[in-house]
């Protein structure tokens, strides 16, 4: 009789430990998603700001300026559910404006242009990086949340089901031609 009670107690403790460990794991994964999402937001905002600055600096031709300004403005003002589309449109606008090396050279020659091109290059490289890290965190959290035990016992609490951030983040080829682009290909 006593042995049975001891065994039951051991089993209960073991199950409790496992559940507490899993909940901790989920908590850590959610925190990781939050950090990755904040980093992605920061990079997207940075890219839109640099693009907007370039569009209003008067170094591009008027048509390109308007296209770029529209797209950058759209990306910054987008509602959360429109964000992925607006950011993809900014990527497309950047690719259209910086389609060839000539535009890049022209901007570089303008006063302060080299710094602006440098900032834009950094921004367009880091967006895909941050997005990859974010979506990797989302996948890891989903894998744990799909476990039966986690679903039945609602170990994830009230945290919303994590969603990947899907967008077109291909950087303009003319900006990444001199290497480093391998990081995001």
């Amino acid at each position: 009789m006593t042995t049975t009670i001891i065994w039951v107690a051991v089993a209960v403790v073991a199950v409790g430990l496992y559940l507490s460990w899993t909940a901790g794991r989920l908590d850590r994964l959610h925190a990781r998603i939050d950090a990755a999402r904040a980093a992605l937001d920061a990079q997207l905002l940075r890219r839109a700001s640099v693009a907007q600055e370039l569009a209003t600096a008067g170094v591009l031709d008027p048509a390109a300026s308007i296209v770029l300004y529209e797209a950058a403005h759209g990306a910054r003002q987008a509602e959360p559910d429109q964000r992925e589309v607006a950011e993809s449109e900014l990527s497309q606008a950047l690719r259209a404006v910086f389609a060839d090396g000539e535009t890049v050279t022209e901007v570089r020659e303008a006063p302060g242009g080299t710094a602006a091109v440098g900032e834009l290059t950094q921004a367009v490289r880091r967006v895909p990086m941050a997005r990859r890290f974010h979506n990797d965190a989302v996948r890891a959290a989903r894998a744990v949340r799909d476990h039966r035990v986690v679903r039945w016992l609602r170990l994830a609490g009230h945290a919303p089901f994590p969603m990947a951030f899907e967008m077109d983040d291909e950087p303009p080829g003319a900006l990444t031609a001199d290497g480093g682009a391998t990081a995001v290909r």
Partner: protein
Amino acid sequence: MRIGIVCPYSWDVPGGVQFHIRDLAEHLNGLGHEVSVLAPADDETPLPPYVVSAGRAVPVPYNGSVARLNFGFLSAARVRRWLHDGNFDVIHIHEPASPSLGLLSCWAAQGPIVATFHTSNPRSRAMIAAYPILQPALEKISARIAVSEYARRTLVEHLGGDAVVIPNGVDVGFFAAAEPKKEWQNGTIGFIGRIDEPRKGLPVLIRALPKILAERPGARLLVAGRGDAEEAVQDLPREMRDRVEFLGMVSDEDKARLLRSVDLYVAPNTGGESFGIILVEAMSAGAPVLASDLDAFAQVLDQGAAGELFANEDADALAAAAVRLLGDPARRAELRDRAGAHVRRFDWSVVGGDILAVYETVTDGAAHVATDERTRLRARFGLGRDDAADRSDRGYRPRR
């Protein structure tokens, strides 16, 4: 930035991963960052000031060969102490899936963790069995780096998720500025790598040699690397053996001079390569490259634009390509020019910048790296050392 780098393999044994970590640490140090490397090492080995020893590595049979690994309570305790003393902004773990320091630090740390996956092993039984143990540790990694598109594909297939591709770095200037050596010039073919490891492909090159010598009797093969020279040439007709010169192990300087001197560098590796740093070094030194068409090599050589490829393990194809290249100085000059432009993306200035960009992306607004107290049993019952403090500053942030 305070950066902690974890090296899984013994510091006293030379190897690709160790060299990569050494160069990365020195590059980051040069930029003014504080770098500390945790690596297994014998206590007597003299270490550079930035390396902290995690104790002696134990040789154990692992993954088909004998690997020198670190594990056990003593190593785990050293990892914890290093994490605690270092107070790092970010830690960068190399080969986190190997049962060594990489996995131990992944287990023991929390906070911004970056990991680089170097190898692209085919999925092993041990990996599948260890998956439930690996996954909780690997899911702590905030950013994964693969050294090539090929390595990234294997990583995605085996472990899921995604990674950014950042190639290994090379000090291009060091190789480009090396002084060529007279006696290594004029119709020479270079090979660098372990002689006694068939995977490195020397046997393929030796099989191709009679055909090359038939067309270009003046050609010579220079071989640098560890291994038994006698055994390597035993399949070669006796009169041809003096056309092969063994240089043994060479220093970094001599390696650069050798690559500067040869008319053709041949990389006949037959498999198991995930990157091919030697190809980048050869290209930096201006040696025209002829390599087997492994996935990793094709990528490093820009799908054949920066160096020529031949069908893997095909000695006849190797011989034909080598003869053609040795007789065509214009084509070699063209390859040299293209390679010279192509290698800039592998220079530490670019690669180091990309790695720093990854560090900055994950540390932006994140807390420091700390030891993860939850993996200890005491902490589970709320008895951990600074459990209360730990819990309050890690407190769950609600999602917007």
